[in-house]
């Protein structure tokens, strides 16, 4: 029997985002050994095939971590340690913190080292010298806009991307974007995010007295909430009775000012971040989930809403068009276009029960087929295995 692969899934912090945690669980369940390196934010009880090799954010914890792996490497892998030290010195990254991060990886030498965030790729190019395959996930801002404003970052991508063994693209669109930074097309594998699907969920049109719109996401400009609020002004002027809730936008003065400026206090509520189950409840009880973003890989919240039977109105940013098929699985509008957003929301508000349910059922079916956890795990396994 073949030895299972040792896969390091690295996001820097443990636990990571919901979708990366799902990937960790899925890969471990499929038989591979998963190694998690980095700093522990919160203790998590993973299944036995997940090994956590982490330190806490305290100086003492980092010191013991370094001491432990320095000792192990000196005793059992002195040549490799010397080679890594020489590399780090050459790179002028000879500081202790870099060693706290790198020594454990050298000690365990996984088959695959999968970096989740592209901005950190330069720190991990060395692993290829130790027969470790390097995989990079292509996600959101790291690919879509940061290198546009930061020419040094773009240059770093152009230097490193041709050498990366495999790319995991969360959408076809982001894969194309990475090609602009010299990522070889043949190394890019699109593996869509997966999520658990609640079976036998009925998705009728909600019976809300006012048309309820919801957006969920941190208060960041890339979420495009200012365009959503401009759209709300147009909806209000059109006479539609609606209410718009932004979960995660409570503390943002820009939104508060815009709401005040456009006289939308009665139509818009800004909520703080909420626990996952509460967010699910709010999505399920809304008539429409609005994704006004100007940039996304594929927004996970849209996948969630589609799985929960809430009709999605999304901008066509990033890879959203790969999920939201106009009038089939949702409504798609151009980015930065408040008028089009308002028009689409108005159209959704006018849908009667059956057409509404047709779209939400097709959306659920789409998620079930293309965004289930099994296909995500299978896709990632195939990527890892193809490199070894």
């Amino acid at each position, binding site marked *: 029997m073949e030895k299972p692969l040792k896969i390091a899934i690295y996001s820097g912090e443990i636990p990571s985002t919901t979708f990366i945690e799902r990937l960790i669980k899925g890969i471990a369940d499929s038989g591979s050994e998963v190694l998690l390196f980095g700093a522990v934010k919160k203790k998590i009880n993973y299944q036995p095939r997940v090994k956590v090799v982490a330190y806490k954010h305290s100086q003492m914890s980092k010191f013991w971590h370094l001491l432990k792996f320095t000792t192990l490497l000196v005793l059992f892998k002195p040549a490799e340690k010397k080679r890594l030290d020489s590399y780090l010195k050459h790179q002028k990254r000879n500081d202790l913190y870099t060693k706290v991060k790198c020594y454990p990886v050298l000690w365990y030498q996984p088959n695959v080292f999968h970096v989740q965030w592209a901005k950190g790729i330069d720190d991990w190019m060395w692993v290829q010298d130790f027969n470790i395959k390097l995989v990079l996930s292509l996600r959101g801002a790291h690919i*879509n806009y940061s290198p*546009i404003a930061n020419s040094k970052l773009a240059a770093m991508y152009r230097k490193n991307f041709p050498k990366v063994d495999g790319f995991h693209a969360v959408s076809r669109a982001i894969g194309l974007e990475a090609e602009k930074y010299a990522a070889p097309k043949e190394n890019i594998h699109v593996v869509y995010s997966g999520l658990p699907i609640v079976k036998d969920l009925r998705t009728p049109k909600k019976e809300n007295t006012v048309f309820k719109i919801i957006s969920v996401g941190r208060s960041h400009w*890339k979420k495009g909430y200012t365009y959503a609020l401009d759209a709300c002004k147009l909806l209000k002027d059109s006479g539609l009775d609606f209410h718009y809730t932004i979960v995660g936008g409570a503390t943002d*003065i820009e939104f*508060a*000012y815009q709401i*005040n*400026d456009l006289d939308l206090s009665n139509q818009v509520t800004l909520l703080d971040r909420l626990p996952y189950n509460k967010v699910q409840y709010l999505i399920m009880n809304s008539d429409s989930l609005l994704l006004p973003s*100007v940039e996304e890989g594929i927004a996970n919240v849209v996948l969630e809403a589609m799985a929960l039977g809430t009709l999605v109105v999304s901008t066509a940013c990033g890879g959203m068009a790969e999920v939201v098929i106009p009038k089939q699985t949702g409504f798609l509008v151009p980015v*930065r276009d408040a008028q089009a957003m308002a028009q689409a929301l108005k159209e959704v508000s006018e849908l009667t029960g059956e057409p509404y349910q047709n779209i939400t059922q097709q959306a659920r079916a789409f998620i079930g087929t293309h965004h289930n956890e099994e296909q995500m795990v299978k896709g990632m396994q195939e990527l890892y295995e193809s490199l070894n």
Partner: protein
Amino acid sequence: MRKKKQHIQRIGLVLSAVPGYSETFFRNKIAGLQAQGFEVVLFVTDQSGSIPDAFGCTVISAASFKGSFWRVLIISVWTLIKAFLFTPIRSYKHVKLDVADNFTLKQSLKRLIQNAFLFSQNVTWLHFGFGMLAVGRENVAAAIAAQMAVSFRGFDLYLSPLKHPNCYKLLFKKEVRYHVLSNEMKQDLVSEGVLESAIYVITPAIDVSFFKSNTNQLTRELQSKIQLITVARLHWIKGLEYTLQAMAELKKADISFHYTIIGTGEERERLMFAAYQLDVLDQVSFAGRLEPVAVREQLKVSDIYIQYSIQEGFGNAVLEAQALGVLCVVSDADGLQENVLHEKTGWVVPKRQPKFLAAQIKELIKLTPQEKELIRGRAVTRVQRNFNLDKQQDEFVAFYEV
């Protein structure tokens, strides 16, 4: 020749930090008051470490209450002891006034600790440079037997209350003389219940000899590639994302242009991505922060100045552009519509409407040279006459004397 004041008044100006080189408003104000025979004492609330040389002012800085629990405790106790030891009457009065305003004794002592640094000087006026600096310090002027003045600058009047609801409730009950930048701000203060007679509109002003246009600038035709410019922090209140949308509209209309944004800020990435996504990155330059002379030279070679802000107290850069004979298109945010008179000295467009902005720019491009010259000429004359530093200084002198 302008007359100097006969009797020396001491003005205690409260700011968060000593004004930096680019903060011309306060630097000009301090220099102007000194030139008129006032003595200025600068109180700074949030600047620890070495204080830079500040225009011959006495500078008093607040203690820093940052750090470990024990450090804060020791500094607080020491500040309290010093306050009662060296300024006992003022400290007692401050606590008494706070208690009368329904603060608990504990709250009053806390406020005393924070404000004790303002007790050491005798001043005629205690003038808070921003509205938020007066919050929590509403009784200081009365405690030190000074008159109280507060300047509102836009951000503090319109945005701070959204972040801190009712933050000015107590302040608006006090006897305060207010300085605002525009009539619009004055009306907004009146609607908050402030007496109209207590509010003085003193607009920003510029050095009109430094920003001086020549005849060529007034009569020139637009360049074949139209040069548009904005001088602003890269911050959402400046409406630059909407401006870039308008630039995309101009590009769609096949207008040959280049747009330069002078300024730095936290939203560079947001704006660069917007320019990229709107496909105008090649038509837009982010020039970063420039020194005043370089700003002036950039303005001189520009055809149209845009200030499409979402919120703007008044807009000094718009005055500078007008003084140099650059055609100005601005939003109707707050004081901007007083800064530029629509279709007289420039154009005012409703905010958050990039298509309207683009339409206005297209329209002005079509104007005859004579029509453009007329607008430029009016703008230059109005700025020179109404927004010069001498006039502003006189208004501040009157503000303290009335």
